[in-house]
C-alpha cells in the first residue's frame, strides 16, 4: 500500500466529453492516457513520478473495466521492454519512470524498441528530476532521445497543453513508427489545474486479443541484417515522417509579434518561467501577450528546420532558453542556421548559466543581459524588481540559517542499523561502505556520516565488489527495493560467483519506502493484485549465499551489532548477507494509529510507549543525538539557570520505537532517558495493583521530602 492514496481522486478519471477536470498533473496525464485508448501501462516509481504509479495502482478497477493492462514493473528496464507489445501490434502503450536514472536502467530496451520501430503508439513518460528538490545527478534525458532517436515532448506547463501533447504524442509515434518521450518536469507532476476532458477510449485492440493472434516480422528484430536497415529507415523514413507530423500539426507554437530584430526560442516546459521573467521586465503581460517574438518548442527533439529558419530569418540574434547541459538544442540551432545560410546569431549559454535550474529570476537575469547586448531598446531600466537587501546582510543571515538535510523519519527502523554500524566502527575501525539508493542513503549525512560511494539503485553490493581485502571486509548496503530491482543478481549473485568476501546488509522494511511506500516482492502485506511475502533470505540462499542472518527487529541494537561484528570477523569465506527487518515506521504508524485510536475509544486496553529525558541529569553533551538523529529527539533551553548548554528533549511526536533506551544501554551514555508506558482502559486488577504501589511509593517520597525540607535553602 502506497504512502498516498488516490482512491478518491481516481473517480475523476471517469470524466466524459466536455467535463472540466480539476486535479494534479499526474492525474491529468493518467486521464490523457485513457482518452488516448492505451492498451497497457507500466513503470517504476521514483520522484517526481511515484504518484503516477500510485494513481495507476489505485485506478486498477477502472483500468480493468477498460481492458487496460497495468503492471507495477520490476524495474525501468522491465517497463521499457514492455513496449515490445507495440512493435508488432497496433497497441498503444505507456510506461513511466524517474529520469535520468530510470532512463539509464531502461536504455537497453529503449535502444531495441527505437531501432526496430513501433506499430502502435509507444510513450515513455519521464519524470525529469532536475533542479531544486532533485535527489540525483543532474543530467539530461535529451541525450537518450537523440542517441536512440525517440521524439522528446516538453509541453508548456499547463494541464491543457500537457493532456493535448499526450494525445498528439501517440499519433506522432504511430505516424513516424518511433517511440515518444514525454518530459514531465518536477513541478508539473504535482501542479494543480484544470482542463476540459474527453471521453475515455477503450483500446481498439486489447493485449489479450493481440496475444491470441501473434504476428512475427523478423525485420523488426535487432539482428543483422535488420539492424543496419533500421538505421537507414530511421533517417530516411521515420525522421522525415516525424518532422512532417510535428510541423503539420503545429505542435510547436509562436507568440508575440511576427517580426522583430531579435527573438526567443524556449523549451515548452520553461515557457511559464520565461513569461514571468518577461512580465517582471515589462516585456509581457500576465496572459502571455509578449513584446518579443517567441518560438516555443513543445517538441524539443527533433527540431523542425523550416520552422527554425522561418523564425530566425531577418533577426539579428535569437536567445535559446535551454535548461541543462550539454546545450544540444543550441548546437543544433547553430547547425540549422549555418545550413540555411542565415546570419542570425544564436545566443544561449553565456547570458544564461551553463548549469542549474532556469527559474524565472535566472531567465530574467539572462534575458536582461541578452537584450542589453542585442536590443538595448527592449532592455529594461536598471533595478526592475525590488531593491534587494545588501548582499552582505543576506550573507550574514545565510550564515545563521542552518542547513536542513533530509533524514530518517521519527522511529525509522533504519536508524538503529546505522547506530549499530557506528558503534561497531568505533570498536573494529572503519570499513569501506558502499551505499545504495533509498532512504538508507541518508546514512551518509549527519549524524551518522556512514557511506563512501553510491553507484545506483540496487548496486550497493556491486559497488563493493572491487574490494577483496585480506583483513578488513567492505560493507555494502542495499534496500529491499534495490534488492528486487536488480541487486539480487548484480550484487548478491555476483558476489557468490566471484567468491567475494564482503558483507551485504539488506534493509528490509517491507516497502519501496523512499519512493512512497509501494509494495515489493518481499512486502509483508497481503495484496489482492500482487504476489508478496517472498522472503529475501530465500532468494539470497537461492543464488548460493551460505552465510545469511535475518534480524527481525532492527531496534535490537545488541543483535544488530553482534551480527555485524560476526559478519566482519567470521573466518568463513564468501559473501555474508545480513537482512535487517522492521517495518517502515511511516507506513506502520499510518496503519496502526487509527486502529489504536479506535480500540481506545471502544474501551479496549491500549498500551503506548514514548520516551523522555530528565533535564536535571542531562548534561547537554548530546552523544545520544549523535547516535540517533531522530526528529523527535531534540534539544531545548536548559532549565537549570547555572547551565548554558541545551538539554536533550523528546517531543510528543515520539512513537516509542525504543532506540533511545537501547542506545543509552549499548553506548553506556547517561541515565537521563526514561520510557513512559501509558495504558488506556487498564483492567481492574492492573488498576488495583498500581494503586497499591503508588500509595507505598508516595509514602516513601513524603519521607524523602521531609529530609529534603530539613536541608532546604
Amino acid at each position, binding site marked *: 500500500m502506497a504512502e498516498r492514496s488516490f482512491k478518491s481522486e481516481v473517480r475523476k478519471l471517469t470524466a466524459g466529453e466536455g467535463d472540466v477536470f480539476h486535479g494534479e498533473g499526474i492525474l491529468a496525464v493518467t486521464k490523457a492516457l485513457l482518452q488516448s485508448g492505451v492498451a497497457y501501462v507500466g513503470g517504476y516509481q521514483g*520522484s517526481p513520478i511515484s504518484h503516477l504509479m500510485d494513481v495507476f495502482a489505485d485506478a486498477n478497477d477502472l483500468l480493468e473495466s477498460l481492458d487496460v493492462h497495468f503492471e507495477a514493473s520490476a524495474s525501468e528496464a522491465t517497463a521499457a521492454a514492455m513496449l515490445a507489445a507495440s512493435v508488432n501490434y497496433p497497441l498503444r502503450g505507456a510506461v513511466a519512470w524517474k529520469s535520468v536514472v530510470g532512463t539509464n536502467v531502461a536504455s537497453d530496451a529503449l535502444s531495441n524498441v527505437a531501432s526496430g520501430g513501433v506499430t502502435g503508439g509507444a510513450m515513455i513518460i519521464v519524470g525529469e528530476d532536475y533542479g531544486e528538490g532533485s535527489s540525483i545527478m543532474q543530467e539530461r534525458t535529451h541525450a537518450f532521445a537523440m542517441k536512440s532517436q525517440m521524439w522528446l515532448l516538453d509541453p508548456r506547463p499547463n494541464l491543457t497543453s500537457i493532456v493535448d501533447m499526450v494525445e498528439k504524442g501517440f499519433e506522432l509515434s504511430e505516424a513516424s513508427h518511433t517511440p515518444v518521450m514525454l518530459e514531465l518536469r518536477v513541478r508539473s507532476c504535482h501542479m494543480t489545474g484544470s482542463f476540459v476532458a474527453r471521453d475515455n477510449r477503450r483500446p481498439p485492440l486489447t493485449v489479450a486479443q493481440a496475444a491470441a493472434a501473434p504476428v512475427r516480422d523478423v525485420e523488426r528484430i535487432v539482428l543483422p541484417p535488420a539492424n543496419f536497415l533500421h538505421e537507414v529507415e530511421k533517417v530516411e523514413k521515420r525522421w522525415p515522417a516525424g518532422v512532417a507530423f510535428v510541423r503539420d500539426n503545429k505542435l510547436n507554437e509562436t507568440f508575440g509579434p511576427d517580426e522583430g530584430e531579435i527573438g526567443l526560442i524556449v523549451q515548452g516546459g520553461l515557457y511559464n518561467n520565461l513569461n514571468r521573467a518577461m512580465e517582471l521586465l515589462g516585456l509581457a503581460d500576465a496572459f502571455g501577450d509578449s513584446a518579443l517574438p517567441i518560438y516555443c518548442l513543445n517538441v524539443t527533439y527533433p527540431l523542425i528546420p523550416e520552422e527554425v529558419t522561418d523564425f530566425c530569418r531577418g533577426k539579428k540574434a535569437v536567445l535559446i532558453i535551454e535548461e541543462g547541459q550539454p546545450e544540444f538544442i543550441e548546437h543544433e540551432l547553430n547547425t540549422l542556421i549555418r545550413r540555411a545560410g542565415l546570419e542570425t546569431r544564436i545566443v544561449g549559454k553565456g547570458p544564461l548559466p551553463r548549469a542549474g535550474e532556469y527559474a524565472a529570476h535566472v531567465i530574467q537575469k539572462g534575458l536582461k543581459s541578452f537584450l542589453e547586448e542585442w536590443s538595448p531598446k527592449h532592455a529594461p531600466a536598471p533595478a526592475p524588481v525590488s531593491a534587494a537587501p545588501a548582499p552582505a546582510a543576506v550573507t550574514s543571515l545565510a550564515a545563521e540559517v542552518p542547513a536542513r538535510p533530509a533524514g530518517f523519519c521519527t522511529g525509522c527502523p533504519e536508524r538503529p542499523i546505522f547506530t549499530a554500524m557506528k558503534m561497531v566502527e568505533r570498536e573494529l575501525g572503519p570499513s569501506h561502505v558502499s551505499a545504495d539508493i533509498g532512504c538508507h542513503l541518508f546514512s551518509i549525512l549527519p549524524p551518522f556520516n556512514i557511506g563512501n560511494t553510491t553507484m545506483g539503485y540496487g548496486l550497493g553490493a556491486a559497488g563493493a565488489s572491487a574490494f577483496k581485502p585480506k583483513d578488513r571486509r567492505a560493507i555494502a548496503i542495499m534496500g529491499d527495493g534495490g534488492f528486487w530491482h536488480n541487486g539480487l543478481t548484480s550484487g548478491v549473485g555476483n558476489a557468490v560467483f566471484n567468491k567475494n568476501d564482503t558483507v551485504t546488509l539488506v534493509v528490509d522494511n517491507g516497502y519501496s519506502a523512499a519512493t512512497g511506500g509501494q509494495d515489493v516482492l518481499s512486502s509483508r502485506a497481503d495484496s489482492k493484485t500482487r504476489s508478496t511475502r517472498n522472503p529475501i533470505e530465500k532468494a539470497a540462499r537461492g543464488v548460493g549465499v551460505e552465510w545469511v542472518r535475518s534480524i527481525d527487529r532492527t531496534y535490537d541494537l545488541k543483535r544488530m551489532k553482534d551480527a555485524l561484528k560476526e559478519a566482519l570477523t567470521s573466518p568463513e569465506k564468501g559473501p555474508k548477507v545480513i537482512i535487517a527487518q522492521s517495518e517502515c515506521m511511516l507506513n506502520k504508524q499510518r496503519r496502526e494509529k487509527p486502529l489504536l485510536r479506535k480500540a481506545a475509544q471502544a474501551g479496549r486496553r491500549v498500551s503506548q510507549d514514548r520516551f523522555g529525558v530528565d533535564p536535571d541529569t542531562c548534561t547537554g553533551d548530546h552523544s545520544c543525538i549523535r547516535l540517533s538523529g531522530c526528529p523527535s529527539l531534540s534539544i531545548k533551553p536548559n532549565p537549570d539557570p547555572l547551565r548554558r548548554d541545551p538539554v536533550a528533549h523528546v517531543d510528543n511526536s515520539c512513537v516509542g520505537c525504543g532506540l533511545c533506551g537501547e542506545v543509552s544501554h549499548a553506548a553506556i551514555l547517561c541515565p537521563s532517558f526514561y520510557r513512559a508506558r501509558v495504558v488506556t482502559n487498564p483492567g481492574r486488577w492492573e488498576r488495583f495493583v498500581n494503586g497499591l504501589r503508588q500509595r507505598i511509593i508516595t509514602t516513601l517520597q513524603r519521607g524523602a521530602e521531609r529530609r529534603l525540607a530539613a536541608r532546604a535553602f
Partner: protein
Amino acid sequence: MTQQRDRLCIAILALGGQGGGVLADWIQSVARSQGQLAQGTSVPGVAQRTGSTVYYVELAPMPADGRAPVLAQMPTPGDVDVVIASELMEVGRAMVRGFVSAERTTLIGSTHRIYAIAEKSAMGDGRADSSKILEAAAKRARRFVGFDMDAASARSGSVISSIMFGALAGSGALPFPREAFEDAIRASGVAVDSNLKGFAEGFDAARQPVAAPDEPAVPTPEPTTPFGQALAARIRARLPAAAHRNALLGVQRLMDYQDQAYAALYLERLERIAALDQPPHALTTETAAALALWMAYDDTIRVADLKTRASRAARVRGEVRVKNDQLLSVTEFMHPRLREICETLPAPIGRRLLHSTAAEKLLGRFFTKGRHVETTRLRWFLMLSLLAAMRPLRRSSLRYQEEQQRVEGWLAEIQARAPSQPDVALEVARCQNLIKGYGETFDRGLSSYAKILGFIRSGAPTADDIATLRRAALADEQGQALNAELNRLGAAA
C-alpha cells in the same frame, strides 16, 4: 499588452510532515470558492523526509474574456505577496532566498524553533541565533506577523497547518472573508473541529503584535530557612553583587545535593576567588556557577535521588500527558559499571576493589549489560531510594575524594592566574564546562580537561588560546581538533 498585476503569489516554507501540502490545498480551495483561479505546485521527493520544502500557490482573478493567465511554478524573488513559514529558521531561509521584499511581502512566520541536526548534535551549544532572524524579519518584510505557532497548536489541540491557515486569514493578506476560509476547512472534511479550533487560534494570534516565544526565567532563590538566610547574608556581605545570583543558586543547589556544611564549603572556596577578583567581577560570577556544578557532580547517589523524587514523577506525568484514568509506568535505562559502584563505596574499599583483577573477575559480569529500571515498581523504587539514602555517607566515598581533589586543583590554577592574568583565570574557570555526562562522555570530557590544564601549566597561554582549545575540545568526539590545536599552539610556544 496590458500592464497589470492582480495575482497573488504565496510561498509556503515548511518541513516535511508539517502539513504544508494541506495548507496549500486549503488556500486554493478558498480562492476557488471566491471565484479565483488557483494553481499550486510542490516539489515531491526526499525533501519531504524531514527536510525543508517549498510549496507555491498563485491566485488570479478569473479573466472575463476567457484568456487564461500564465502562472509560474515557483516563487520569484521580489514577486511574492505572502510568505508563510512554519518555523523560525524557515522564516530566515525565506529571506535568504529573497522571497521576502519590503515592498510587497506579508511574512507570516512561527517564532518557535525546530532544531536542525547540526544544532542538535553539537557537543555543547550549537543553536543558531534566533534574535537575528526576528530582527531581519521585522526589517525586511512589508509586514511581519510572527508568533509561536507550535505553542498555539498545543493550546488548541490542533496541527500547525491550521494555525498557519488561521494566521493567513487573520493577517488580511488575502481578500477573502473569514467564513470562506473556515468553509475550506469544512469542505476538506478531515478533523474539522480541531482544525477550526486551530484556525481560530491562529486568526487571533495574527492580530497581535509580534511576540517572541517566552523563555521562562528562573527567579533568584529566596532563602526560607534560618541556615539558608545565614548563607544568603554571608553572600551579600562577602561577594560582589554581580555574583550574588549565581552564588545563591549555587548554595541552594549544594544544600539540595548534600547538606548545609557542603554549601558552606562552597562559599568558602568561592570567597577565595572573590578576594582576588576585580570589577566587573566576571571571574567570581563565572566561578560561582562552575564551582556549584562541579561540586554537585552526578554520582549514583545523586541520580537515584533525582529519579525517585515526587516532583520528578509529576514532571514526567505532565510531559507525557497522562490522563487521570490512564496508568503510567516509567522505566529508566541505567548501565552502572563496576567503576561507578566502587566510586560510591568508602574510598579505601572502593580503591582496592577498583584495582583488583579478582574483583573484576568476580563482579564484572554483573555490570556488562544495561538495566531496565522500572521506578514505578516497588523493587526498583526501593533500591534507588536506598541508594539515595546513602547521601550522608557520600563524603567518605572514593568519588568524593577524587572530585574534591580535582576541584582544588582547578581552583588553585584560577587563584594562581587571577592577580596577574584575570582573563586567563576566567578562561580556566570556564573549562569546568568540558567535564560533563557519565561513562564514556565523562571520560572524554575529563581527558580534554586534563590536556588543556596540562597545556596551561606548561607554559604561558593567553586567554584566547584557552578559549580556542575549549572550542576545539567540543568540535569532535575523537579529540582530533583538540590535538591539532594543542600541536599548533605547542609548536608556536
